Structures are given as structure tokens and as C-alpha cells.
């Protein structure tokens, strides 16, 4: 089912806000304000069609890339940005950098090793099942990460234990600058679902309405106790692997995907159906940029942690 008109505006706004966050983070990285680095998610905001449908008490496991998971769940951009700058006001009090958890919004943390999130998702789903709840766990991974052993064993466990997991593979066609054909055995990661006896669906990841539709089915299924599904979102990352990495992909390929920018596509859909006016677009964008500028400002002005704080937080 398509989102309600309000829902459509909200989804569009989330996408624009995520993009604005990315742009602010990219600018901070370029200015040398981020001690580590930022792995941008620009171009992959179509995934919000899935994430935005989670209930507040659902869980999300997130990858190394982008901010839309956090924005989509309602995390505070100020605290996100402060963390990137290593400030005490950040989600990890400056200890994690881009490795951020927001447990209040059910985001379990960001791993430094790819593929480590999948078993975490199994654990959260196990908890739901033991407690007899109807929460859903959404778990993101890249097509490169589909090769990790943990992805495999977690998909097995989700299936044999019939866990409420929605697996979301964001296939952006590259691992670093290596094209997917060099490391994936199948063209469609969704085909892997056959190994696990779960439904596998290929979705145009840049068409947020299509993502919304496919995710709705998978979420319903999981919530109803009918087990896991695998959705593959075909998408593209518009920035280099990370902000401090060179871009080595073909500029023509990048330009072609520019035409399929998920925000642009949705904007066209919504303006065509009169859900959105040019003025709306402008207002939403302006508000988002103001919000993220304020977040950057907050981050910049926040204090660094005191060295003594390094000795806190190891044990509960």
C-alpha cells in the first residue's frame, strides 16, 4: 500500500533531511573538522522507504554507510554531528566517531567490521521471540558484505528459528572501487534467499515507493510471525567510498545514476500527483538545510571531552 498523502510528505522530508545531513557532514569533512572519516550515503536514501515504516519499538542494525538510518528513526542530528566531530555531546561522548548507537531509537550500534551486524540482528530478534513480542528487526548490509560468513549463518538462523527479521541488502554495485561481478557469484543477491528458504525480492532501490511497497510486505510478514525475508535494493552510491578516498569509478556511470537520484525521482512522482508543490520542495529543503546547519554549529561549538573521560564507560 502506498503511504497516505501525509506519509508521502513525511517520507520525502526524511529523504531531504538525510541528504542535508550528508551534505553538512561532507562539508565538515572537507573542512578537516572530522577527525576520522565519513562514508557518505548520498544516493541511497531510497532505503528510507523501508526504514521509515518501522515502529518506534522495532530494531535496526545499520552498516558503515550514511545517515539515513539514524534520520529515519528519529535520531538527533545535533548529537550525530557532535559525535562525528569527537565532541562530548555526541551519541558516544566522542568515543566512537561514525560508530554510533542510538538505543532509544532501537539502533544497536555501528560496527567497524562489516558483516558483524547480521548476528546482532539475530540476537535482537531472538529477544523478541523469547519475549513473545511482535517487534521487527530490520538489518541492512551491502552486496559486498553478502560475502561475509556472518551474513550467511545469520540468514540460516533467521530461517530455522523463523525470526522476525527483514534483511535489506543495499546493492550499490561496488565494494570500494571493485565492481560487484569481481566478488559476487550471482547478479541478484536476492537469489541467495533460495539457500534459506525465505522470499527474496529485487527492488529498484532508488524508487522509494517501490521500496516502501516491498518493505511493507516483508515487515507485515515478520510481524505476523511468518519469518524473515530478503529484499535487495538496487542502488548506487554517489560519493567516493569515503570522503577521504579517491573516486575511481567511471564518471559516465556516476552521471547516469545522477539522473536516477532517489530524491529527484520521488519529487517528480509527488509533484506529478500534486502531493508536492515547487514551494513545498523549497520550504522542505530550506528547513532541512537550516536544521543541519544548526546541527553542525552545535557540533562545532560543543566541547571536546576531558582526557579523564577516556577512563569511563568500559564496564557497566
Amino acid at each position, binding site marked *: 500500500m502506498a503511504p497516505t498523502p501525509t506519509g508521502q510528505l513525511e517520507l520525502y522530508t526524511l529523504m531531504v533531511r538525510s541528504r542535508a545531513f550528508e551534505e553538512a557532514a561532507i562539508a565538515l569533512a572537507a573542512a578537516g573538522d572530522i577527525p576520522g572519516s565519513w562514508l557518505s550515503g548520498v544516493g541511497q536514501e531510497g532505503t528510507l522507504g523501508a526504514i521509515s515504516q518501522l515502529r518506534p519499538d522495532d530494531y535496526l542494525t545499520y552498516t558503515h554507510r550514511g545517515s539515513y538510518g539514524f534520520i529515519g528513526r528519529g535520531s538527533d542530528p545535533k548529537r550525530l554531528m557532535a559525535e562525528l566531530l569527537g565532541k562530548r555531546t555526541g551519541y558516544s561522548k566522542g568515543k566512537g566517531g561514525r560508530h554510533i*548507537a542510538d538505543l532509544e531509537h532501537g539502533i544497536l550500534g555501528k560496527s567497524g567490521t562489516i558483516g558483524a551486524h547480521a*548476528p*546482532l540482528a539475530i540476537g535482537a*530478534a531472538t529477544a523478541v521471540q523469547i519475549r513473545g513480542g511482535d517487534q521487527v528487526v530490520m538489518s541492512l548490509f551491502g552486496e559486498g558484505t553478502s560475502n561475509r560468513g556472518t551474513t550467511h549463518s545469520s540468514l540460516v538462523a533467521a530461517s530455522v528459528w523463523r525470526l522476525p527479521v527483514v534483511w535489506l541488502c543495499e546493492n550499490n554495485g561496488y565494494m570500494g572501487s571493485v565492481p560487484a561481478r569481481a566478488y559476487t557469484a550471482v547478479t541478484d543477491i536476492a537469489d541467495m534467499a533460495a539457500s534459506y528458504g525465505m522470499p527474496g525480492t529485487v527492488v529498484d532501490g532508488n524508487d522509494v515507493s517501490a521500496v516502501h511497497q516491498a518493505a511493507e510486505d516483508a515487515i507485515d510478514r515478520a510481524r505476523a510471525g511468518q519469518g524473515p525475508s530478503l529484499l535487495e535494493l538496487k542502488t548506487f552510491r554517489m560519493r567516493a567510498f569515503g570522503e577521504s578516498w579517491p573516486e575511481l569509478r567511471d564518471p559516465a556511470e556516476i552521471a547516469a545514476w545522477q539522473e536516477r537520484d532517489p530524491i529527484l525521482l520521488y519529487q517528480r512522482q509527488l509533484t506529478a500527483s500534486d502531493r508536492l508543490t515547487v514551494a513545498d520542495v523549497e520550504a522542505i529543503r530550506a528547513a532541512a538545510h537550516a536544521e543541519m546547519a544548526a546541527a553542525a554549529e552545535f557540533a562545532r561549538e560543543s566541547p571536546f571531552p576531558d582526557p579523564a573521560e577516556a577512563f569511563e564507560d568500559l564496564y557497566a
Partner: protein
Amino acid sequence: MRTLTISQAMNEALHEEMRRDPAVYVVGLGLYPSDGDDATSGLVDEFGERRVRSAPNDEALIAGSAVGAALVGMRPVAEFYLADFAFNALDEILSKAGKWRYMHGSNAGMKLPIVFLQGIGGYVGAAAEHSQSPLALYWHSPGLKIVAPSTSYDAKGLLKTAVRDDNPVMFFIHKFEDSGPVPEDEYLIPFGVAEIRRDGADATVVATSYMVTLALQAAENLADRGVDVEVIDPRTLEPLDIDTIVGSVQKTGRLVVVDEDTERCGVAAEIGAQVLERDFAALRAPVGRVANPNLPVPYSPPLEEAVLPSVAKIEAAILATLA
């Protein structure tokens, strides 16, 4: 008082803790149906397959799922059968369980109450990949508590404490399991409190797990020869009751540490360093290290004996500190 094996004592602890707290569950291999009289036997009958979860065979999955469940409020007990197999889960144990709270700034009061249960030890012809005792590997890494009981009494009381601890706990059980008295009434044993297993004036021996049994035997043998050995069982390495150890060394002037693990960067080197840092003058001889001389554990009995600590080697090391 009744006598229980270490496994039976642990089994009782798990039954009690699972009854007490519905957040406690067990996940691992070979739990259902139980293969014998071990720590997890019978749990599935009482608590069902959801809370006693036999997993697909991937240790990274088991460990990582425990972390995920702990993050949302559960108290998993992850069972690996042997510590050797947990090597497949070291990213999950070292970098997720051990560091997740810190690196996320204890976000929203993040807790990681997980017990990682593992079998350790040689002396049974199990060879290189089924005989390891990797205590130092975990002690070296931040954020993990380390428990290695030597008696049934301690195993029960420490396991109950481990289940209630809000941090990841590596819980090591030796294959060579002892039996001992265990009271009927509930009790817990705090982490970080060493037990002096034998008082002595001439030399201090520190040992955990099955090494305590060997050390006590060596102490008895030396007593016949007029050497009075103190044997200290720290029970937990992290936290470590270094005060008790230093106090003993200040009395005896001699220290031998027995550790079944490989010697290099091992438990003995660390305890030796800490003692010297606390009181450089206390030691009158170099620390005796009785440990595996940096070899994989071989299979054949005479070879295994050559590599692993023994009563004779402990005696020799004690005498060397007195020479």
C-alpha cells in the same frame, strides 16, 4: 554436604538463574537434546527450545547474537563447548562484546550482560585444536571479565555472579573436572576475591582452574621436603585480586605462576609485572613461569606431558626460586 562435579554445579546455577530471571537464555551447539551430564543438561526440558536454543554451527553467529540480544535487554549465556571453537567468533567477542559499550559511549546506559561459556585444557589427548586454554588472549583485550574456577563450589557461585554481571564474562571450565562439596542454599561469589588454598611461608604459587589441583599436589610433595608453599587461586583474572598476591609475595619473597596457556605474553608474565610494579623489593628471585613453552598442544601422551604444566615441573620451579 553433597558432592557435585563442576558441570553439575554449573547446571544447578543455570537452572536457578533461568528460574529467577526470564531474561536469561542459553544459546550454543549441541544443547538439544543434551549429549550427557553437562552444564546445560536438562535445561531444555524445563525452559523449552526458545530459551535453550541449539544454534546453526557458526560461532560468530552464536557470539554476535548474544551481543545483539544483550543490547536489547536479554542476559544470554553463549555456549561454545571448547574455547578453541570460539576462535571463530573473536571479532564478536573481542571487538563487539568487549568494546561495544565503550565505543558507543555507553549510549543510553548500554549494558552487555553475556556469559561466554567455554571448555579449556589438555591432558586428555585432544591435541592442538581441542586443548587450548586461551585465558591470556582474552585478558589482554579490554572489556571482558575472566573467570576460571577450580572447584565445584566456586563454579556455581561464580557462574551465578557471572549471569548477574552487566558485562561480558568469559567463563572457562577445564575438561578435567573435579568434584566437591556444594551447599544446598543459594550463594554467590564476588569477582576479584582470591582464595588462599594453602597457607605457606616459603614461596607463593598462583594458579587458576585445574592448575590449582596440580599446584596443591606440588605443595604437598614439597611439604614432605620441608618447603612450605602458599597456593593462591585468584578465581577471576579480571578483576584480579592483586593485593592478596602481593601480600603473599611480601611474606614469601618467591613467586611461581602456573598457567596452562602458552607462556609468551601470558598470565605469568602479567602477574609478575604487576607484583614488581607494586613492590619491586618483594621478590628475591625471578618469577617462576610454569606454562606451555609456546607450542601447540601435541596429541601423544608423552609429548603432551612434555608440553603442559605438571606437578613435577611446578615443584622444580618452586625449588628454583629458592635456590
